[in-house]
C-alpha cells in the first residue's frame, strides 16, 4: 500500500490536537525560547516590566522573609525597579548561588552570601567592589557596621558585600528554671561548668533536656559550635605546614566533650537537629540551655513563636581556655560582576541594609524582627534598646570579641573562626560534620570520627602544601 496524501477531509480524532496548528505553535514557541531571555510567569503576573528587573537570591530565614514582605516599600520608592526573589533554604541557596556566580551564569543580580564566600570570591574577581557605591550614597554610613563584620567582608580595604545581619554565638538559658533550681550561671562559663549545670537540669521525665546543641550535619550546622569548642580547647585544623591536626589531643578532648554532652544531656533527635530544631525545642520550653547563634533571639524572644520569651538569661560563649570563643558569621548582600544593572542592584542592597530599613522593620513588624548584630545604631533605637536589654550588649560584645584572623591559640595558615576560609571547606566541612553527626548518633566513637576526618583534612591539606 503506497502512502497517499489524503486530503484532510476526515475529522481528526478529538483526543488529539490538530497536528498542523500545534506544530506551528510549537515552532513559534521555540523561536521565542531561543531569543535567549528569562521567560516565565513572573513577567506575566507582574504586568510586564518597564524599567529594570532585579533578581535577588536569598536564604529563607525569617529576617529575609520579612524583607521580602516589605519589599513593596522599596518598589514604591523606586518605581523603575522591579524585584524578583528566590528564597531557598540555606544549603540549597548556597549551592545555587555558588554555581551561578562561579560559572558566571548571570541568573542573579543580588546574591546573599556570607563572610565565608566574600573573601574568596572578591579575590577571584567575581564580586563588584561596593566601596564606590557606598561612598556615593549619602547617609549610608558604612562605619556604623560592626568593625569585625566590615573587616571580614572586605578585600584590600574595600567592602565587597555589606552585612544584612551578623551573629556570634553565646549561651542562652532559662533564667526562671535556673532560679528555681538555685543555680547561678556564670557570665563567662567554662565548658566544665556548662556540663555540670546541664547534668543538674536534665530531667527526661519532665521533658526537659539539660542543653540543646546542634548535631545536624553541615559545615554551617553542627560544625559551627564544634569548631568553637575545638578552638577554645586549644585545638586547630592545620598547623602552619598544612598538616591536619584533627587527631591531636586537644581536638579529641574537645570533640569527645561535645559528643558526650549532647548524648547525655542533649535534645532527642540530636544527630539531625540543626538550628531550627534546637530553636523549636528550646522555644517550646524543652531545654534548660542552648548554645547557639546570637541571632536566635529573634525566635526565642518573639512571643508569637516562643513560649519562653522574656524568661531567658544570656552568657558569653562557653570557653575552656579563657579566650572568647564565639563564632563570627554574617549574611551579607553582594553583586556578581555579571549583573547588568549594578546601580539598581546597589539601590536595593542599600535599602535592605540601611538604618531606615531597620526602623521600618521595627515599626511595621515588631522590634523583635530587627535584623540583629549588623549596625551599632540599631541598638540605640529606644524601642529596640529596651527590647534587647538582656541580650543586646552581649551580642555586640561577642561579635566585637571575635578575631577571625587569629581564631586559635596556636598559629594557623587559615582564617575564620567556625570555618576555614578555603574553597574546599564546604565539602571538607560537610564530610567532617557528617562524621561528627555519626558520632553523636552513637554510630562510632568520637576518636573514630576524628580519624576519618583527619584523612579528609589531610587530603585537602596536601593540595595546599
Amino acid at each position, binding site marked *: *500500500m503506497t*502512502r*497517499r*496524501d*489524503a486530503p484532510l477531509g*476526515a475529522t*481528526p*480524532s*478529538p*483526543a*488529539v*490536537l490538530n497536528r498542523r496548528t*500545534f506544530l506551528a505553535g510549537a515552532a513559534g*514557541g*521555540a523561536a521565542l*525560547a*531561543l531569543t*535567549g531571555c*528569562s*521567560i*516565565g*510567569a*513572573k513577567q*506575566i*503576573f*507582574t504586568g510586564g516590566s518597564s524599567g529594570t528587573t532585579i*533578581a*535577588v*537570591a536569598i*536564604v*529563607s*530565614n*525569617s529576617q529575609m522573609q520579612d524583607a521580602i514582605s516589605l519589599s513593596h516599600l522599596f518598589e514604591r520608592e523606586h518605581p523603575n525597579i522591579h524585584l*524578583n*526573589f*528566590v*528564597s*531557598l*533554604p*540555606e544549603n*540549597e541557596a548556597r549551592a*545555587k548561588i555558588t*554555581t551561578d556566580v562561579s*560559572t558566571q*551564569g*548571570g*541568573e*542573579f543580580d543580588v546574591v546573599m552570601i556570607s563572610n565565608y564566600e566574600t573573601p574568596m570570591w572578591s579575590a577571584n574577581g567575581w564580586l563588584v567592589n561596593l566601596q564606590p557605591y557606598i561612598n556615593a550614597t549619602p547617609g549610608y554610613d558604612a562605619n556604623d557596621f560592626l568593625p569585625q563584620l566590615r573587616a571580614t567582608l572586605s578585600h584590600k580595604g574595600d567592602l565587597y558585600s555589606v552585612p544584612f545581619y551578623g551573629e556570634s554565638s553565646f549561651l542562652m538559658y532559662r533564667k526562671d528554671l535556673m532560679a528555681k533550681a538555685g543555680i547561678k550561671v556564670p557570665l563567662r562559663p567554662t565548658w566544665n561548668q556548662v556540663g555540670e549545670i546541664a547534668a543538674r537540669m536534665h530531667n527526661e521525665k519532665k*521533658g526537659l533536656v539539660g542543653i540543646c546543641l546542634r548535631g545536624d550535619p553541615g559545615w554551617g550546622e553542627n560544625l559551627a559550635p564544634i569548631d568553637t569548642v575545638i578552638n577554645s580547647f586549644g585545638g586547630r585544623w592545620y598547623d602552619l605546614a598544612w598538616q591536619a591536626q584533627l587527631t591531636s589531643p586537644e581536638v579529641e578532648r574537645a570533640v569527645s566533650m561535645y559528643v558526650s554532652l549532647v548524648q547525655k544531656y542533649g535534645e532527642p533527635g540530636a544527630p539531625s537537629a540543626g*538550628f*531550627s530544631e534546637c*530553636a*523549636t525545642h528550646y*522555644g*517550646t520550653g524543652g531545654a534548660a540551655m542552648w548554645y547557639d547563634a546570637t*541571632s536566635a533571639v*529573634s*525566635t526565642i524572644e518573639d512571643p508569637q*513563636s516562643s*513560649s519562653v520569651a522574656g524568661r531567658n538569661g544570656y552568657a558569653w560563649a562557653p570557653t575552656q581556655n579563657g579566650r572568647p570563643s564565639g563564632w563570627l558569621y554574617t549574611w551579607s548582600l553582594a553583586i556578581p560582576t555579571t549583573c547588568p544593572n549594578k546601580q539598581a542592584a546597589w539601590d536595593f542592597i542599600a535599602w535592605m541594609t540601611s538604618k531606615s530599613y531597620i526602623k521600618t522593620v521595627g515599626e511595621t513588624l515588631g522590634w523583635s524582627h530587627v535584623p540583629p548584630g549588623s549596625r551599632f545604631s540599631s541598638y540605640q533605637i529606644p524601642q529596640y534598646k529596651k527590647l534587647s536589654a538582656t541580650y543586646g550588649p552581649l551580642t555586640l560584645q561577642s561579635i566585637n570579641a571575635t578575631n577571625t584572623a587569629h581564631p586559635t591559640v596556636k598559629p594557623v595558615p587559615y582564617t575564620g573562626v567556625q570555618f576555614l576560609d578555603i574553597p574546599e571547606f564546604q565539602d571538607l566541612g560537610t564530610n567532617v560534620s557528617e562524621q561528627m553527626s555519626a558520632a553523636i548518633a552513637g554510630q562510632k566513637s568520637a576518636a573514630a570520627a576524628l580519624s576519618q576526618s583527619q584523612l579528609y583534612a589531610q587530603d585537602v591539606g596536601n593540595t595546599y602544601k
Partner: protein
Amino acid sequence: MMARSITADPELTTPAPKRPAVRPKRRRNNTWVGILGWLLGILFFFPVLWMVITSFKTEAQTYTSTPSIVFSPTLEQYKTVFDSGIWPYFANSAFATIVSTFFVLLLATPCAFALSLRPVKKTRDVLFFFISTKMLPIVAAIIPIYIAARDLHMLDNIFTLVILYTAMNLPIAVWMMRSFFLEVPGELLEAAEMDGAPLRRTVTEVILPVVAPGLAATALICCIFAWNEFFFAVNLTATQAATVPVFLVGFISSEGLYFAQLCAAATVATLPVILAGWVAQRQLVRGLSFGAIK
C-alpha cells in the same frame, strides 16, 4: 489465531456478568476482606490526611508532643502561602507540564506506532535505548546541562524545563503508547486495509479512537511526573521560571517554626495532581497497568 476482543476495561465496579452466582461462603470472606481493605486504605492515606489537618493549625498547635486532633482550625497558614505569591509558580508549573506533555504525545505517538503496528527491525533495541536514557542519574549530567543552558542563554527559562521534561517522559510514554497500540485488534486493521483507506485515514479514524483512552492515560502519567519534578526546576530556574516544587522548598526555614505553614504549602502544591488523579482515576489505573494486557 487466538480469539481476541477489545481489551477488558480494568474498571473495578462492574464485574463480568458471565460469572456463576457467588456462593454465600465467598460473601462472608468478602466482608473481612472489605474491612481489611478499608483499614489499609485509611492507613495508606493517613499521612496525606495528617498533612492537610496540620495545615489548618497554628504553629503552636502543631508543635505539641500530643498531637491535637480536636482544635479550632485557622486559615492563617494558607494566607501566608498565598501571600507569598504562589500564582506565578503555579502558572510556570502548569505551562511546563501541559506543554511538555503535548510534546511528549506528539513525539511518542508516531514512535510507538512505528514500533508496534508497523514493526521495525531491532524494536527491542530501540525500546531499550529509550529506557536506557532514564538510567543516567540526572545529578551527574546537571553541570553540563547547566553550562549548556547558560551558553544558550536558556537559564531561568521555562522552555528549558519543557524540553527537559519532554525528554524525561518520552521513554515511558513510548512504552505505554506502544502497549496501547498493540491492543488495536487485528480485525479492525485488516478491515480498514481492505477498504483501501489511505494510511492517514486509517490512523485517525480507526486507530486513534481505540487508543484515545491510552493517550489520555499516558498524558496523565506524564503530567504527574512533570508537575512533581524538583531537581531540574530548582537548579535551572531562578526567579522567572521557578515551579511549584521550588516554591514549596522555600517554606523550609532554617530558623524558627515552620511545620504548619509547610503543610499548607505542601497541600496547595500537591492538590492539583491529587485531584487530577482522583478524577481521572480510570485513566490512571489504565495507564499504570499499561492497558489490561492479554
